[in-house]
């Protein structure tokens, strides 16, 4: 028998006998003959652990990862440092081999973590209520959009074209089948065209989704947008980089109704795009409209503090036909890592991470200008990412950079009519030496 299956052949025989059967096949007599496979699956033979180890390592070795390469690539997935305790503790199997905490008495670990995570997200975003997370940033945007339309009983949503292209793509897919109209708001000098936004807003619009720092790294004027929305009794959804909230005024203080974002930067691996988690925080007013799980504090029979999933009546498995969302799970392991990360870096540490990323981004940006290698595209306040215009197609540059061990920035021309423009991300992990080397490499390429 396979090593993952404890029973021996003898156990099998005994168990069959116990239920009055002789052969395993007798357990499948209820499957009509015509549907029986009648052959072996076309898969490779069982692998021993040693073989398995070889195979997986060889596959992994076929990839170049951001330990091998110096990474200036961001665009929604960031190479921030992950303290070692994060993976050690999140790697405890009491966490990762537990199921959804539907039996709270024996799930207090998972539940307490969700509660602490919700508290931390509310701190960062300046909002009243956080859910236990959704699949990822794009999914958070989709859920927030649907929720906004449901709450407002309107079916139009404004989305700034400075919002991450992947988010807008996912929104398009969700809206197509939900009959929600997605209206793209044009951009102006790297940020949302606020005048256009105001003109496009009326009483038929449920709300607006903006991103800050936006896809180009520019910090947007959330207050302006939320004021515009309030005039039409519409909602403001802001997608944020959680790290930036250590130093940026939180959307909650600027009139946002829903704050969402991609949570990967908080202690999670870039992992080729997943699993990540999307966080979602709202004002008290919207607490009953929030999709997904929420953990609440209560008391047990002995009057002791205890945590439990609450507001579950909103959940799809109960609302069924009435559901506005069908999400079942949250990203338990991911928010565990995020919470451990936030608690480890702590109040001061998160600020350090944000500030050093900004300082280093500014260093590199200036250096590129000084050396006359590239020109900044926008002159706007930015966080840790910025767009630079080169003299060659970015694809070409990146290819060359790769040769010298650098993972170049994002080619904006692949999503916007912005030839030769690279979106460069700098995290606290980058050193002066790495950035100098990066610039040297670019000098050669040029």
């Amino acid at each position, binding site marked *: 028998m396979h090593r993952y299956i404890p029973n021996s052949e003898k156990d099998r025989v005994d168990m069959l006998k116990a239920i009055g059967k002789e052969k395993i096949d007798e357990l499948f007599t209820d499957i009509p003959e015509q549907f029986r496979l009648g052959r072996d699956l076309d898969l490779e033979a069982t692998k021993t652990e040693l073989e398995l180890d070889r195979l997986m390592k060889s596959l992994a070795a076929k990839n170049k990862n951001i330990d091998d390469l110096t990474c200036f690539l961001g665009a929604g997935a960031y190479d921030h440092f992950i303290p070692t305790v994060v993976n050690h503790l999140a790697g405890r199997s009491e966490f990762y081999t537990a199921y959804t905490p539907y039996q709270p008495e024996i799930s207090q670990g998972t539940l307490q973590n969700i509660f602490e995570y919700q508290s931390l997200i509310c701190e960062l975003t300046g909002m009243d209520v956080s859910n236990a997370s959704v699949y990822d940033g794009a999914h958070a945007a989709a859920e927030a959009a649907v929720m906004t339309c449901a709450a407002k009983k309107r079916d139009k949503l404004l989305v700034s074209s400075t919002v991450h292209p992947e988010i807008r793509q996912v929104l398009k897919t969700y809206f197509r089948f939900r009959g929600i109209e997605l209206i793209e708001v044009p951009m102006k000098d790297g940020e949302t065209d606020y005048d256009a936004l105001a003109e496009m807003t009326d009483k038929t619009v449920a709300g607006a989704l903006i991103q800050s720092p936006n896809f180009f790294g520019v910090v947007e004027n959330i207050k302006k947008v939320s004021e515009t929305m309030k005039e039409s009794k519409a909602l403001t959804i802001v997608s944020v980089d959680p790290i930036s909230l250590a130093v940026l005024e939180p959307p909650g203080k600027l009139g946002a109704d829903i704050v969402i974002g991609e949570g990967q930067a908080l202690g999670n691996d870039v992992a080729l795009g997943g699993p990540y988690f999307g966080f979602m925080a709202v004002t008290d007013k919207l607490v*009953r409209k929030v999709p997904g799980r929420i953990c609440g504090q209560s008391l047990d029979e002995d009057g002791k503090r205890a945590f439990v999933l609450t*507001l*579950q*009546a*909103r959940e799809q498995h*109960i*609302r069924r036909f*009435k559901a506005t969302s069908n999400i079942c799970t949250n990203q338990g392991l991911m928010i565990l890592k995020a919470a451990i990360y936030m608690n480890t870096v702590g109040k001061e540490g998160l600020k350090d991470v944000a500030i050093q990323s900004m300082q280093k981004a500014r260093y590199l940006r200036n250096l590129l200008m000084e050396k006359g290698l590239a020109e900044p595209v926008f002159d706007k306040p930015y966080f840790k990412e910025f767009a630079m215009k080169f003299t060659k197609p970015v694809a070409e540059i990146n290819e060359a950079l790769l040769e010298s061990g650098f993972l170049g920035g994002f080619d904006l021309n692949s999503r916007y009519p912005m030839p030769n423009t690279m979106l460069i991300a700098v995290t606290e992990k980058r050193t002066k030496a790495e950035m100098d080397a990066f610039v040297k490499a670019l000098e050669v390429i040029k």
Partner: protein
Amino acid sequence: MKVQSGLYYSEDHEWVRVDGKTAYIGISDFAQHELGDIVYVELPDEDDEFDKGDSLGAIESVKAASDILIPVSGRVIEINDELDDAPEKVNNDAYDAWLIKVELKDDAELEGLMNAEAYEAFIESE
């Protein structure tokens, strides 16, 4: 299960208490029992207009969230905002804890509803 006479009942277990040209609307004691401990009552705004059968809001218990389908058409003239802080009132006395008061659009719609007797029989059969 208490069934208050003098009220009109819908198959979705809402009751209507006429009061002249207006009517109070609530959920039946049966519904309250089915839902269990009610933790939240979501009500519409005053002046909202509904047609018979529209969802005027929702009632949430720990187990379930059910929409409240308005049994008669009308305009909301008052909502029972006491339920905001004390949703348990619906559990305590479903016929006292009205949800909304509407201006009736058409008395005749009442004829389409059940009286106490019919409703009692209805929940028996449920």
